[in-house]
């Protein structure tokens, strides 16, 4: 037989939109050579809900419930990012009490979001049990939120200029209890998953994201920190009252493999949970008295102008670009979702790995499709 009739071709494998480990409705078009990945083409947009178009038809307070639904695992942080953006645009100064409560909520939300990230990462790798432990602890945080604002997932809690409710009288006590309860659980998670040999083998040296690539791709959040850069907007571009708290920025150290591999991305999140606990602990003791509705404007009508405001979401830098034409509706609202940007690096870091590694890499980027597609 002539050699030219012997044709080998790459296997095209469609992963998703309905696939057990695509973290939502994401479709990955894989070009495989055997089980080796030649190319990954993410197709997104299955969860596109026209947030930006909607926002143009809403008044500023009405946009808040919509921001909840972007990164639905970190609604509080989205609310916070949006509220801060509009406040900066309008020049509102919120009361101290509000700032403290916001920080506590945002940090608890960070823990909750990371718990989902870590738990589902376990499932991606094949360990099912840590997932349920993580969800068990996340439920406790959600209960705290529910007690405060009545909703477990989509809070509409942090408003422009204030909060929808003051905290519940029991909130401080229960939060302290939670912090006490949660510290040993991190140790347990580490024992069960983080330092498990199989888990390390699966994640160390997989999907290495070098620092310069990470910056060039605009990757932010735990992914960027795992690549070795001490970069956290809470410290580097402080918003709210984060400059008052004492906490560290965990970075990837390549402890089990190379700096910027999947294990580092995973472990940075574990360490961030501890740091968030520290912030919550410091903040919960200092909440001053005050009225949370004091600075809420009767009519949110920012002056003509625009702003790009960013906050550190659990998944990375959440930016709101708002153009106001001086009316009660935003003229243009663009959201720079961290997941959207972090996902775009997937092809770069998964080339040459196996299909099974792709799952590990995708899990370690921790995307939420609600935010990718908006």
């Amino acid at each position, binding site marked *: 037989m002539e050699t030219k009739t012997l044709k080998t071709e790459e296997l095209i494998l469609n992963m998703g939109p309905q696939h057990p480990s695509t973290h939502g409705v994401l479709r990955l078009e894989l070009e495989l050579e055997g089980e080796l990945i030649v190319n990954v083409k993410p197709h997104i947009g299955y969860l596109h809900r026209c947030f930006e178009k909607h926002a143009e038809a809403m008044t500023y307070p009405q946009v808040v419930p919509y921001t909840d639904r972007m990164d639905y695992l970190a609604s509080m942080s989205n609310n916070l990012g949006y509220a801060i953006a509009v406040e900066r645009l309008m020049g509102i100064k919120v009361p101290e009490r509000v700032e403290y409560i916001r920080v506590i909520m945002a940090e608890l939300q960070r823990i909750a979001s990371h718990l989902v990230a870590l738990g589902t990462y376990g499932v991606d790798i094949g360990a099912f049990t840590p997932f349920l432990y993580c969800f068990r602890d996340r439920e406790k945080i959600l209960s705290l939120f529910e007690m405060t604002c009545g909703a477990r997932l989509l809070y509409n809690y942090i408003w422009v200029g204030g909060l929808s409710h003051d905290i519940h009288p029991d909130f401080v006590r229960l939060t302290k209890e939670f912090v006490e309860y949660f510290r040993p659980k991190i140790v347990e998670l580490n024992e069960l998953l983080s330092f498990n040999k199989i888990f390390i083998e699966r994640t160390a040296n997989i999907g290495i994201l070098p620092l310069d690539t990470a910056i060039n791709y605009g990757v932010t959040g735990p992914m960027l920190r795992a690549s070795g850069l001490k970069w956290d907007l809470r410290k580097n571009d402080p918003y709210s009252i984060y400059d008052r708290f004492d906490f560290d920025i965990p970075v990837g150290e390549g402890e089990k493999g190379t700096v910027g591999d999947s294990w580092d991305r995973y472990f940075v999140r574990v360490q961030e949970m501890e740091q968030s606990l520290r912030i919550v602990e410091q903040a919960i003791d200092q909440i001053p008295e005050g009225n949370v509705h004091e600075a809420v404007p009767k009519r949110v009508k920012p002056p003509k102008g*625009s702003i790009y405001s960013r906050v550190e979401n659990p998944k990375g830098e959440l930016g709101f670009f708002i153009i106001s034409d001086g009316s009660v509706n935003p003229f*243009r609202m663009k959201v720079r979702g961290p997941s959207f940007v972090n*996902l775009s690096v997937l092809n770069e870091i998964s080339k040459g790995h196996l299909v099974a590694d792709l799952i590990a890499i995708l899990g370690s980027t921790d995307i939420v499709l609600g935010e990718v597609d908006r």
Partner: protein
Amino acid sequence: MMKPEEIFELLKQKFDDKIIGFENELPVDSYIVVNPLAIKEVSKFLRDNEQLKFDSLMCLSGVDDANEKKTKDEEGNEVIEKGTLSVYYHLHSIELGHKVNLKVSVSVDNPNVESVESIWRTADWHEREAYDMFGIVFLNHPDLRRILMPEDWEAGHPLRKDYKNPEFYNGMRVPY
């Protein structure tokens, strides 16, 4: 740390007429307006210059300025001055910690902007999104496809202010 005004001066010296102006009447952010076909050169300079080092593109957003003007000329005919689409670039230097914003404006009829994908890879998806939502064409972009909307969406670019929802998409009713 450099202020946007200083950066504007620097760019003005370097690129002269490719830098169109500096918008600063806005309350929070200010913009350096750049010629859409020179944005790539300017970006490269901004990234590589030792004083500037803008290594990170935080956000790239398309905007429909909705500034279409209808005027009547002397003979009473309606003259339509087409609106513009703008692209906003928010840059940030991780090393030096300063920020600057760029803006380019193009006519709706001929919305061609030079792609900055080769400068900051993050612009890849952002530009695709701007193309998808506004129809801004990024020249020399390697893979300019729709990203959020279906690839066979024929009703135009949804975030334009004059966008109308289609009645049907592939035989399915769109409004519910």
